[in-house]
């Protein structure tokens, strides 16, 4: 996987490059809008990490320029502007995800993985995520099934499990879950994810499996191997 990183701050840029590198993602760094457009002409990228404010332009304008010239790789927009309005503006401009500074490297890596996975099989992913190993979702009963056993879940736990299964074997962070499962654009500053996750884990244990791994300070991973 190859990621184009567009960030003018040398400290943050270096941090992102080394962080993505440690996660096995190749990177190319551009430090301004002109360089970004130049690099994107000469190389193929699976994803882009784009700083919203650049010395010679705006990240949103770069996306627009790419749009005019054809396909745009999945974009994670980074910004010190963290208000809900800024986030909405960023997403409406064509970014696939939006992350406010300061951020954790684990959060950034998880989101880059998530957006670059999102593009190729958008239609089939929903279907594919209905089962991981022997763990299945039954949307008609809002239930999780493992082999012959099944357990009913409330709407939130069901969506939570569905999201984890969609990203099986990948790190999903707390903020990603708040955004995608709960649709919260604010930071609730509470244990919503932790408490609901422990509830889900308890329900899955009733099926005899415990596939959710907690990575402290980072997020959660649903292990496909634990669902066999």
């Amino acid at each position: 996987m190859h990621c184009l990183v567009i960030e003018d701050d040398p400290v943050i840029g270096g941090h992102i490059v080394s962080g993505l590198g440690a996660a096995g993602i190749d990177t190319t760094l551009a430090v301004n809008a002109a360089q970004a457009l130049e690099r994107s002409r000469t190389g193929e990228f699976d994803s882009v990490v784009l700083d919203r404010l650049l010395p010679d332009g705006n990240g949103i304008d770069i996306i627009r320029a790419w749009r005019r010239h054809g396909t745009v790789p999945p974009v994670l927009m980074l910004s010190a502007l963290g208000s809900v309005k800024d986030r909405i503006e960023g997403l409406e401009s064509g970014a696939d995800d939006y992350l406010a500074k300061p951020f954790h490297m684990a959060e950034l890596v998880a989101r880059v993985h998530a957006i670059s996975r999102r593009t190729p099989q958008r239609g089939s992913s929903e279907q594919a995520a209905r089962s991981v190993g022997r763990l299945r979702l039954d949307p008609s009963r809002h239930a999780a099934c493992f082999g012959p056993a099944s357990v009913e879940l409330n709407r939130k736990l069901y969506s939570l499990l569905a999201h984890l299964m969609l990203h099986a074997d990948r790190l999903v962070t707390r903020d990603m879950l708040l955004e995608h499962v709960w649709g919260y654009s604010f930071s609730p500053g509470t244990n919503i994810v932790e408490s609901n996750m422990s509830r889900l884990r308890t329900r899955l244990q009733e099926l005899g499996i415990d596939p959710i791994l907690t990575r402290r300070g980072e997020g959660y991973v649903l292990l496909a191997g634990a669902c066999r």
Partner: protein
Amino acid sequence: MIGGVFALAMLLMGALVFVVAERTVALRIDSDLIHHKAKFLRVPSGRAATSEEVAARIRDWQARKITSERTYSLFAPDGRQVAGRLAVRPRPGLSDVLFLGGGRTWQRGRALAERLPDGSLFVIVQHSEAAAGLRALLPHLVMGAFVAALTAGLGATWFFAHLTARRLAATGATADAIAAAGDLARRVPMDGLDGMFARQAESLNRMLDRMESLVETQRHFASALAHDLRTPLTRLSTLLTCDLAGDEARLRRAIEAAERECAGIIAIFDALLRLAEIEGGRHGGAMVALSLDRLVEDIAETMEPVIADAGGTLVTGPLEQAAIHGDPGLITQLLVNLLQNVATHTPAGTSARLSVHRAGDHVELVLQDNGPGLPREDCARVLRPLERGTAAADRRGSGLGLSIAQAIVRFHQGRLELADSGPGLEVRIAFPAVALPRI
């Protein structure tokens, strides 16, 4: 400036008076001349007088009048003077003439000449001493009036300006003192002021009252924020200065703890930003007809595990069907914040109940718990930013949850009240109701 305009206006006025007076005198003289000409050129029976009769009348008039402002003359068709003393022969009609008065001094006069049917020329010259005197006097009169009016006007202007300045001086001194020293406790002195000056001073003082309270709130907020940041920053600094070299496990724990402190600090700023967004109406959501009972049910589902983990219980009901005009994101945050408070600030074993009622044109959302509640004096305080209940030993949370809740309720034109539900706390929120959205 004002003085100059005033003087100019007075000058124009004087010139106007002068021209009008001058013109009036001239017209008066002309009509006199015409009147006397008619009198001389007709005999009492109404017939036009012959030149002999006119000459006779002139001579007769001369014999009777020693001094007069008018002089009559008659010239024969060949130009010879038949009667009268003045040898001035103007053209027929009205004209200005110059003549030797008394044979010694040149004088100005107004003449009226008329040709008689036999070709003789009848001339009246009027030299009015009174008119000349008036004319000579007029410029002095106008000038005098001008100077008097100017003096009086400027004097009055200066007097009122001085009076106004003296009354405004106190206001100015207060404003200067506040600007110089930032002392918002000062007020404009009211003694000796009346009418509009008193009203103005009152409104200025009211503004200063408001400003003082705003600044006080701001100052309090800043010191509370500094205090709230000092705690996690101190812990962070302690963690960073510990000598943990070589002890891998302790180092990792210290890093995790440091990250938690950072997250806490960031959370405070996120909450502040959010509060400012909501208070400024820049939160980015859209207002829709919102089914409040369903939203409550949905959020209770999410928050029930959180409260359960904190050792409490959350139940809902009764949830009457009700809709409000609201931003779903904001109402969600409102409910999450309130339930978060139950989880954080009540002891294990507390049970909370969320209910929705319709009351007339309002929808009421009530969150009631059987925890220790809040002393009455804390109820107003905890709604302010970074204020906590006096009994809250722990300082968990941003201290902005209820301020944000209050801002959200206000944004929706609602009302938030905290009350003692004996025992426990009751949060009662009223929103204006709207018709239920069609499903």
